[in-house]
């Protein structure tokens, strides 16, 4: 299992780097989807098959499709690709890269200093998730749904406004 975990983690990391460095937005999105899929595999390995499935259905299957959809509608030409390339100059990415490196070294330090922990692998079933969502985390769920509702109404309002013009 460990090998699978490392492979999928490596795929996730590599594809995420590709997402950042692609100039063509659809290519970048494709790598992002790959990254999400590998994260889903990690979830599955860690004993959360339900979350893995949701990751694919919702993130990779729905939200990213919407991204592709929007990009298709906007239809950025070769011009925007050129613009994107300009953003990739060393001056632009040096700062964020340094900050990320600091974070990564911190993470590595934290992981190594704590020593090997016994992985308590327990399969989380859909039922467990349901119970905890509507039990201890009920308020969180409600808050999230209110946020989504607000978003929904906002989108509806904006779309209506565009139509009247």
């Amino acid at each position, binding site marked *: 299992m460990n090998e699978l975990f490392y492979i999928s983690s490596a795929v996730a990391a590599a594809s995420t780097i590709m997402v950042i460095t692609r100039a*063509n937005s659809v290519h970048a999105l494709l790598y992002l989807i790959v990254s999400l899929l590998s994260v889903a595999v990690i979830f599955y390995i860690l004993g959360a098959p339900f979350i893995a*499935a949701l990751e694919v259905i919702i993130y990779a299957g729905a939200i990213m*499709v919407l991204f*592709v*959809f929007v990009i*298709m509608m906007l239809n950025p030409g070769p011009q925007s690709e050129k613009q994107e390339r300009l953003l990739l100059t060393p001056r632009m990415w040096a700062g964020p890269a340094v900050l990320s490196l600091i974070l990564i070294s911190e993470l590595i330090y934290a992981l190594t200093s704590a020593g090997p922990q016994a992985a308590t692998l327990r399969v989380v079933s*859909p039922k467990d998730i349901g119970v905890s969502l509507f039990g201890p985390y009920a308020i969180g769920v409600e808050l999230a749904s209110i946020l989504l509702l607000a978003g929904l109404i906002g989108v509806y309002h904006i779309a209506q406004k565009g139509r009247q013009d």
Partner: protein
Amino acid sequence: MKNIFIPLITIIGILLSLTTVSAGLIWLERRLLALWQDRYGPNRVGPFGLFQVIADMIKIFAKEDWVPPFADRAVFILAPAIIMIAVLMSFAVIPFAPAIEVVNLDIGLLFFLAMSSLSIYSLALSGWASNSKYSLLGALRGAAQMLSYEVFMGLSLMGVVIVSGSFNMRAIVEAQRDTWFFIPQFPGFIIFFISGLAETHRLPFDLPEAENELVAGYHTEYSGIKFGMFFVGEYLGITLISALITTLFFGGWLGPVLPPVVWFLLKTLLFICVFILLRASLPRIRFDRLMSFGWKVILPLSLLNVAITGAIVLLWS
């Protein structure tokens, strides 16, 4: 060593038989359409024209594998592969018979939904990569249609999940020992069937291709083997949806006398023929009507179905 071989053989067997069967479906569809249209259909190559499919395949393989110069090459090639992979992966969780199954996954149903949501990319990306307006329009239609109908598809299946108490396909089939789910879950069945039509974009929902309007929609620019992948992918999709209807609503392999796998195949074949009959008889619905039908009729109905099923199950137990 032995326990690696058996799944491998199952996988290869299912894979091969699926691709053969779905290619054979092309023949079946042409013959059935011809029957309903007072024609002969393919009847020259081999007995009953059965080898027509092989001839077509040879033709498609031998064709020039052409990528239009204005297309985005990498994505253009990737797109047809996605639909084949996504649909074939979905078959992994379908129990053909008690002993024939690739994996017995606890989240089998969710796995199917995940894979079918990935197959949208095939349409969207092929339309985008073709860099043609007809393809783009087809892809936009396809993405919107499949995205919406996937929601209804998932919701319509929740009724089955509530009644059977599991996402596991095998458990769902076993739960139908007494009554097939199309009786208690009749609305769910209808909604799933309609969404299945929309997901496989067959008439009357074949808007992403709509040959009278968009030439061939998202695969206008495709030819040769890449077009063949879309083509076979469509028939694989029909087989998948038919197999799922069989599994989820019509008792899967359950049935008297005959061996389980024969029952499964018979039921699946029946639904495939229903798909073809629909194609022979119905006109195409308009895109905006399809969407409003989905969100205004199907969505409330499927939510109602989930709520009522949940309430009944709660009261029963």
